[in-house]
């Protein structure tokens, strides 16, 4: 029999575990970011055609003492590499947290941020953007903007289609997402077929990659994704209750339909922003939440922040591999996430016999 103080100590133990997990992931992420700025063509770590940045130079530059070193060293590390890593982190965070939230909302382990047409809509928007008569400098942002508009309006459309008599069932939402998704996939194929010269560019975007990274992009993406992600964490308790089913969540005082709507809006904002700049990077939003669920359990108060941090860590790391492994060319990171993510996920599936939510 458990004694008087044990509920408190049980709670303390859980809270301690929460702090430990979040601290460990945060430290790992920080160290990884630091380490990854040292990796790439010209080094200090990684392939090099000839000239190589010395480790001392890289460290000096990172700590703000770049005067003694050539300007191109600083530019490579601070203006090319660091924003790309940070964009990777942000995109990874947003995809993973959105995936975790979608799996909770749909009570479906197959759910990911793209499940109700986000990626399909983004793809149509992106493809359509190449047909807009825009000048080069605005054209750079036309694709992300159109992709974002395509993504969010598709989610809205899917939601409206699924709504009948003022109610939306998640199952209907899922199915109408599939219906709209396959329709839009056909539209995208057609636009790709017509795209001519732009085909290669679009195709790269569709495969998913972080080559659009720059400080400007990071500053656009950062506020949206960080605020959205923080807001999503506030719904952790609602998501827990919603996993028990709509009716039980209602009994516990949760306005399920309202929360669902808010969560769909927030995830499409957060994931839509990520997709706009990085293209369709698969698997992060699916497997990171599952990996975290195996490690930390189904409780969203820990699952959401853990997935966020792990997603950032994972995507930035995989991207570092993607940009160095066959340098001077790079592999689209979406290809690599699937290449290494899928087998690892299969291994996890074999190893653990857990419930999948």
């Amino acid at each position, binding site marked *: *029999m*458990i004694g008087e103080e*044990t*509920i*408190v100590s*049980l*709670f303390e133990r*859980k809270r301690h575990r929460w702090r430990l997990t979040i601290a460990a992931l945060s430290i790992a992420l920080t160290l990884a970011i630091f380490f990854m700025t040292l990796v790439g063509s010209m080094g200090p770590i990684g392939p090099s055609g000839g000239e190589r940045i010395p480790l001392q130079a890289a460290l000096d530059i990172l700590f703000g003492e770049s005067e003694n070193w050539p300007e191109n060293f600083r530019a490579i590390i601070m203006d090319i590499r660091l924003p790309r890593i940070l964009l990777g982190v942000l995109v990874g965070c947003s995809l993973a947290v959105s995936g975790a939230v979608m799996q909770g909302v749909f*009570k479906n382990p197959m759910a990911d941020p793209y499940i109700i047409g986000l990626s399909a809509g983004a793809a149509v928007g992106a493809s359509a953007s190449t047909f807009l008569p825009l000048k080069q400098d605005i054209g750079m942002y036309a694709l992300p903007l159109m992709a974002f508009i395509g993504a969010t309006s598709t989610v809205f459309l899917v939601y409206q289609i699924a709504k009948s008599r003022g109610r939306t069932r998640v199952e209907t939402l899922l199915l109408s997402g599939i219906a709209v998704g396959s329709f839009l996939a056909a539209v995208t194929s057609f636009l790709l077929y017509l795209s001519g010269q732009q085909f290669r560019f679009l195709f790269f975007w569709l495969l998913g990659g972080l080559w659009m990274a720059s400080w400007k992009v990071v500053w656009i993406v950062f506020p949206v994704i960080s605020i959205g992600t923080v807001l999503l964490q*506030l*719904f952790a*308790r*609602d998501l*827990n*209750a919603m*996993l*028990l*089913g709509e*009716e*039980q969540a*209602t*009994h*516990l*005082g*949760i*306005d399920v339909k309202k929360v669902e709507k808010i969560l769909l809006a927030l995830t499409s904002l957060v994931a839509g922003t990520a997709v706009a700049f990085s293209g369709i990077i698969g698997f992060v939003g699916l497997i990171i939440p599952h990996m975290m669920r195996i490690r930390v*359990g*189904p*409780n969203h108060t820990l699952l959401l922040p853990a997935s966020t941090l792990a997603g950032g860590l994972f995507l930035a790391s995989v991207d570092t591999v993607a940009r160095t492994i066959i340098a001077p060319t790079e592999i689209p990171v979406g290809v690599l996430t699937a290449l290494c993510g899928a087998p690892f996920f299969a291994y996890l599936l074999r190893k653990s016999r*857990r*419930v999948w*939510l």
Partner: protein
Amino acid sequence: MRLEIRGLSFSYESTPILKNVAFSVGQGEFLGVMGPNGSGKTTLLRCMCKVLEPRVGTVLIDGRDLRRFTRDEIAKTVGVVPQIPTVDAAFTVFEIVLMGRASHIGRFGAESARDLEVVEEALKMTDTLHLADRTFDELSGGERQRVIIARALAQEPRVLLLDEPTVHLDIKYQLELLELIERLNKQIGIVIVAVFHDLNLASQHCDSIILLHNGRIEAIGAPERVLTPESIRRIYGVDVVVKRHPVTNALHVAPYLSKKSDRLKSRATVHLVCGGGSGSVLMNLLLERGMTVTAGVLNVLDTDYETARSLGLSVVGEIPFSMITDESFAANLALIEQSNILVLTDFPIGPGNLRNLQAVEEALKKSIPVFVIESTPDQQRDFTGGIALEYMARLKKKAIVVRSTKECLQAIIDLQEQACSLKPKELNTSSPKNTENIEASELVNE
């Protein structure tokens, strides 16, 4: 604390489920909601916690319309224990019960010491504290049900709605669970509204019962007023015997299947001379086949007497533990004369009921067919010092002796079929469809 329902009607699409339901429950009351499948019980509970919002009628909690409550406010007032609660995710018991605090903690809050206290108290009350760190899906059905109740209690509700809380529980857990609910009701004063299928559990624990039928309240009130054989037959279409439980004195509702088979329709009247429960089963079997059954003389309080009464038979009763009086004897003979067949079951014979054997002898004299059921030897049933044995020996010479109730029933059916099959050869003008009825009625008139 008062929960009041006024003129509540609810329809899914165009199918009306609840029609003008009105009742109220007050502080410390335990209300059972009963009715056949599809009578609207669960819908009623759903309306009471605003999972469904009825267009017609209102639900009032302390005079305030439920529609004006926010979800949080409802959760703090009404706890719900759903039917067959399932949890797909690997949550621990503690996590699940803590979810009951969601409405108190709020979106921006954190779990306070008080929240943990309430959770602990809820776990203690439901005897699930030792399960706190276990995963919900590894628990037994009874444990799960208790955990879900703990979760509802963590909401600190003033009303607890339970939808068939005992379903899927074995008899021990059923009793424990009802004990728990009763404790919450009586000690903490939580208003309980629970849907039950088990008439006995409900009548034993509820202060009052609502009987729903096709979305209407058929009866409402104390269990003994609501659960009568008549109301149950009308609503469930099942015949029951309602008695008092010998130990708890609670109502005890025992159903029996009345298979009114048309094929075996017979209008014969069978008189039973029985006692001590030896005739109860046969009474029902004969009734099922459409026969009229009478019985006598039986002491009031005798099992067979009670069965006969609850089945609505004509029966001659005698004051308990007394000899058969001349009056009763005569009344019994009158019933025997009206019957086509007499059955003598194997009940113990003492000086008190010896005259029943005399009555059987009278029947034989009037050439009424007599069946004697003999599953225990006469010697073991004789408490008259041999007089009964003499009677039995004489009776058996003229009567048909069968070994069991089942055999007796078959013999009675055979006898009637014989009577039926003889006639059609003579009456080949009549249509075969009506033959049976004619034969049966002739048999009665013989």
